């Protein structure tokens, strides 16, 4: 009954399946390391998916789609940032508002685009590396965004651990009072982190609509933004483990899709549940600490 599943193809599609969540999660990781909990990832992702899709259709160029999605995600995140940093609103409630607003906005903008096909976004066949048997097709024959995602993860790791600005960002996240007392700009740092998170979520959403599906449908993200939030917890706020979490999740998704296609005796609905149940299990196992000290707390420099 598993005969029709090609393990090589399975591993190859794993990287593609993991990319949207990886992108959204690495953005949120930076936001949370700065001490802000943005629950609006799902809303920014789905807005990014529709904005990127519309721009890609209008220009016929997928890259412009990704750019517009990133800008749109950052713009929505800025609304969240202004509300939480200047209006001192509750981060959980504001994040939920962003998600509800984003879901509505996406289905409003996406109306005329249901069922339209995205412009093509060809895979890269990396010379030499792509020709290696087995490893080549699994790792080195994907579309460029897969590598952009990996690059962002690497860049974030380097930024957080090797640069002074990264150290300031972590200080702001661990103890905003102390960081403020040392003269760092808590609000400015957080706003920038929030916008970076929004841009990454937008990219992740656009990857879904332009590459992965590749079309726009209502409710396209189907909880991917929330799973990204869970993967940040799983990763204990560390970029390296984030990669592992995203691929683990990509694996579960791809496996259940393949099992559906292979016509296994388990009903489709129960297979479709599995990524969400896997996420819950992962959260239960990985609920140990490691969260930034000021995560989710409102900062107000009282005089």
């Amino acid at each position, binding site marked *: 009954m598993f005969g029709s599943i090609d393990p090589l193809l399975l591993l190859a599609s794993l990287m593609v399946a993991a990319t949207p969540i990886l992108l959204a999660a690495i953005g949120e990781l930076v936001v949370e390391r700065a001490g802000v909990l943005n629950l609006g990832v799902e809303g920014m992702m789905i807005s990014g998916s529709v904005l990127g899709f519309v721009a890609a259709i209008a220009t016929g160029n997928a890259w412009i789609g990704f750019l517009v999605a990133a800008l749109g995600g950052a713009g929505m995140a800025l609304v969240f940032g202004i509300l939480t940093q200047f209006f001192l609103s509750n981060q*959980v*409630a504001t994040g939920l508002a962003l998600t*509800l*607003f984003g879901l509505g906005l996406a289905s409003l903008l996406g109306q005329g685009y249901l069922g339209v096909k995205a412009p093509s976004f060809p895979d890269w066949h990396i010379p030499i590396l792509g020709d290696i048997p087995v490893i080549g097709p699994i790792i080195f024959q994907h579309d460029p965004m897969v590598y952009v995602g990996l690059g962002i993860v690497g860049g974030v790791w380097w930024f957080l651990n090797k640069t002074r600005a990264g150290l300031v960002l972590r200080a702001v996240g661990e103890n905003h009072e102390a960081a403020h007392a040392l003269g760092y700009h808590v609000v400015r740092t957080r706003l920038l982190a929030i916008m970076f998170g929004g841009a990454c979520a937008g990219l992740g959403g656009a990857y879904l609509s332009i590459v992965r599906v590749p079309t726009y449908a209502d409710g396209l993200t189907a909880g991917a933004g929330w799973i990204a939030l869970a993967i940040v917890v799983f990763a204990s706020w560390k970029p390296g483990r984030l990669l592992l979490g995203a691929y683990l999740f990509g694996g579960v998704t791809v496996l259940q899709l393949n099992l559906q296609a292979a016509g296994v005796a388990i009903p489709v*609905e129960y297979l479709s549940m599995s990524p969400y149940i896997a996420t819950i299990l992962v959260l239960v196992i990985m609920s140990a600490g490691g969260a930034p000290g000021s995560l989710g707390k409102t900062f107000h420099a009282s005089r």
Partner: protein
Amino acid sequence: MIALEKRPQPSAFWSYAAPLVAVILTMIFGAALFAALGKPPLEALSKIFWEPLFGEFSFFYLPQLLVKGAPLVAIALGLSLGFKAGIWNIGAEGQYIIGAICGAAVALAMYPSEARWLVFPAMLIAGAFGGFAWAMIPGILRVKFGTNEILVSLMLVYVAEQLLASMALGAMKNPEGMGFPGSRNMSQMDAATSWISQSNGMHWGVVIALIAVIFAYILFARHILGFQIKLAGQAPRAAAFSGVNPARLILFCLGTSGALAGIAGLTEVSGPAGIVSIDFNVGYGFTAIIVAFLGRLHPVGILLAGGLMALTYIGGDIAQSSLGLPGAAIQVFQGFLLFALLAVDVLTNYRVRLVQRGAA
């Protein structure tokens, strides 16, 4: 330069005024949005807020207000318990679905029994228990393992949606339905229907929502548990020292909100919706989050906010059919309302002062 100064006490004036200002801001935003969509803005606003209440066909729309408002109020009341204590159940949509499935299972298993005295109460218990049990999953995981209840309760929404699809297409499919998905119609079963008077929009969900408002009011005004909930939200350390058991509080808040959402789901499926179908849930569980905040987490406020939000649903439908306003525009409108409220709310807790730069 503008600076914010924390108020020693939240402003009583602004805690009442903030929701009103937010609604006005949202109307201005809505008018701009409708104009941007090429619809006459003032006409659209009057279709949404005036037509259902005072228009020519208000006799038809007013009962709808009860039907749409009841699940919103019931769910939002439950959510408000947890939100006050800093316990975030945002998976009410899932608890609503599971309540509906459990209640419907009882009704369909007992079909064609005509013993209403037995069938309907059993459905109520099953619906409440279903929602309760679904909410206990994030509750117990939070208490035992410290798992984040926001993410778990939300993941369970997607699981519940898949379960709903499986029920509508499989186990609960109407054997006489000629192969169409969906269960038998419970609103037409005398023993199982939640309708009291369909033409007036009265069903048991409305009654239970109103009773819940009274109970929640008493809980917060008179009962020690209501005090402990507020204390745990505002001063967690003080709550711990005064002997509040956090685990018990988490389970109580999640369990109660789950049970209320479950009852809302059950009374919806056996009345207004009638059948267990794939698209049974329409997002009440999420809209109820807006209702809870707009109502300031206060039972009476939630009742009013639920009515207002129900109005936007009905008015949105009217504007959709008469002006061609897209249904999603109402969703954007509702989302903006929560943004506006959260922004205006700064005035409740902070005072705005003009200060000279560098004077601090």
